[in-house]
């Protein structure tokens, strides 16, 4: 569905050259749900804009839905849906008018466009607002209208740029429910950008982590976490027996750092344990055999934030400026 080869974009801002995207190779198969994850300014949106022909690549090639983005941008646009960061509805227009015109822009006839608009308004809980002007909608309603606009022509490939930025958790969940339902019904391929790691984690099957204009990881969220981060394990043993397990835990961390704090006659060890859920039971037995039974255990699965930290040494929220 998408194939890029060394796709790159360079901007010139005040005579200074900025390499926003430094040659990325991306392959997305039909039906996939892929998230571009990275801090603000990492190059996610620039990549998305090149794939949607809103930006011309400086170098490299991209084929989207079987069409080359530089040779036939209008052909690409006819085959994809795009939901940008901003609200797509014109302020003074009526909701239904904007939807119908959107359908007309994609070559639908007026009967089909109206039927499709009504169907989408119904399924996105906007049916009562059809004749409302866009400016009178709430933030959540506008975002749902954006989804309706993007889905008017039933695209086989849908791009979403930061779909849920600025939405409250309830509206976010609601939005995702709608997107997932559309996907189930039509097998739509979905590519989105996000800087919410939990969104990338829970919603997408595949995560492409972008930093400083480069792809630094590309896998399922589960594998990225298992391979790159490992679970966070905390065990407590009696202070008197702590010396007996120090070496054991050091080996289990496989070269990773083991931190300890002691309080109230207890020592709390913390370490990263790859595949922690599988290895922890055996580790507990070993600790018991070494004469230092665990008094408590906490096992926290890693997040994509941990993966990003492991890859870059930075936190996702710190942004790209370091």
């Amino acid at each position, binding site marked *: 569905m998408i194939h890029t080869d060394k796709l790159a974009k360079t901007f010139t801002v005040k005579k200074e050259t900025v390499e926003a995207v430094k040659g990325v190779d991306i392959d997305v198969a039909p039906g996939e749900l892929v998230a571009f994850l990275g801090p603000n300014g990492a190059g996610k949106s620039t990549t998305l804009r090149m794939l949607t022909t809103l*930006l011309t690549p400086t170098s490299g090639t991209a084929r989207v839905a079987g069409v080359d983005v*530089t*040779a036939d941008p209008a052909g690409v646009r006819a085959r994809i849906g795009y939901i940008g960061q*901003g609200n*797509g*509805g014109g*302020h003074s227009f009526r909701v239904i*008018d904007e939807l119908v*015109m959107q359908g007309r*822009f994609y070559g639908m006839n007026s009967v089909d466009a109206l039927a499709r608009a009504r169907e989408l308004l119904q399924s996105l809980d906007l049916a009562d607002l059809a004749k409302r002007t866009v400016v009178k909608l709430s933030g959540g309603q506008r975002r749902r209208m954006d989804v309706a606009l993007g889905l008017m022509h039933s695209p086989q490939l849908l791009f979403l740029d930061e779909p849920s930025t600025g939405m409250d958790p309830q509206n976010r969940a609601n939005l995702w429910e709608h997107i997932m339902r559309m996907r189930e019904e039509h097998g739509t391929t979905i590519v989105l950008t996000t800087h919410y790691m939990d969104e990338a984690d829970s919603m997408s099957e595949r995560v492409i982590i972008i930093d400083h204009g480069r792809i630094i990881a590309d896998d399922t969220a589960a594998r990225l976490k298992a391979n790159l981060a490992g679970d966070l394990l905390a065990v407590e043993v009696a202070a008197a027996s702590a010396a007996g397990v120090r070496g054991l835990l050091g080996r289990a961390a496989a070269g990773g750092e083991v931190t300890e704090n002691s309080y109230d006659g207890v020592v709390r060890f913390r370490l990263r344990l790859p595949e922690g859920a599988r290895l922890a039971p055996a580790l507990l037995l070993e600790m018991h055999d070494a004469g230092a039974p665990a008094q408590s255990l906490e096992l926290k699965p890693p997040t994509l934030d941990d993966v990003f930290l492991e890859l870059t040494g930075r936190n996702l929220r710190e942004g790209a400026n370091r």
Partner: protein
Amino acid sequence: MATHGTAAGTRQKPGLGRVLHDTRYVFWREMLLPLRDPFSLVFSLLQPLVFLGLFGPLLGAAVGAPAFGGQSTLQWFLPGVVVMIALFGTSMTGSNLQYELMTGSYERILATPLSRSSLMIGRALKEWAPLVVQGLLIALVCIPFGFVFYPLHVLFGLVILGIFGIGLGALSYALALVSQNKEWIFWGVQQTLLFPLMILSGIMLPIEAGPAWMQTASLFNPLTYLVNAERELFAGSVGTDTLLGLLAASVTAAVGLAVGVKAISRNIR
């Protein structure tokens, strides 16, 4: 933000049929605004009448009949008012775009398969469309005051103004794009250019009454040819002035669209 575009030359150019097809929908979307709120149309119809009613009599009294080449003041002045409405209307094309640039609606439409020139032509024609009604209305209203109405000539005159309006509208569109996030620049440039262009075309007062340098400057103003063409057409004849006006309008449209398409492809963040 300036960008390095490389492959622009290899892009497929949309055909004329495609552009016309797309223009229809862009125009129709824009027209939904006044059609859903018809009250705004009433005001836009009244404005030229007020202007004509208040400025016309003063003009005749102040300048005197000889400056108008033997025509009645009204016959001379009315085509000027029509050109002025076209000028004000289509030069505002970009101002409506500014709101859409601030939200995501410009980008949403840019992501549809619509051809780039249709985005500008459709919007410019929306600003021109009321002129057809306005022009015919003021012509009808002026008949009792000695204005001689030649419907076909006037219609042709409106078509020429439409062609000119596409060019001016596209330039206004491009101006809105380059002044994105600095809206005052749009207004500053639009206002600064509008008045000299208007005065130097002889819309309001006959340029023949001015000094030689003004007459020379007016020769380089496309609007001058447009106003002359409209005056000839409104007087019921078709001649050299009409041809020159059509030429000036076509050149403006070609230049405007070229600049506009370039601005669209350069301006995307």
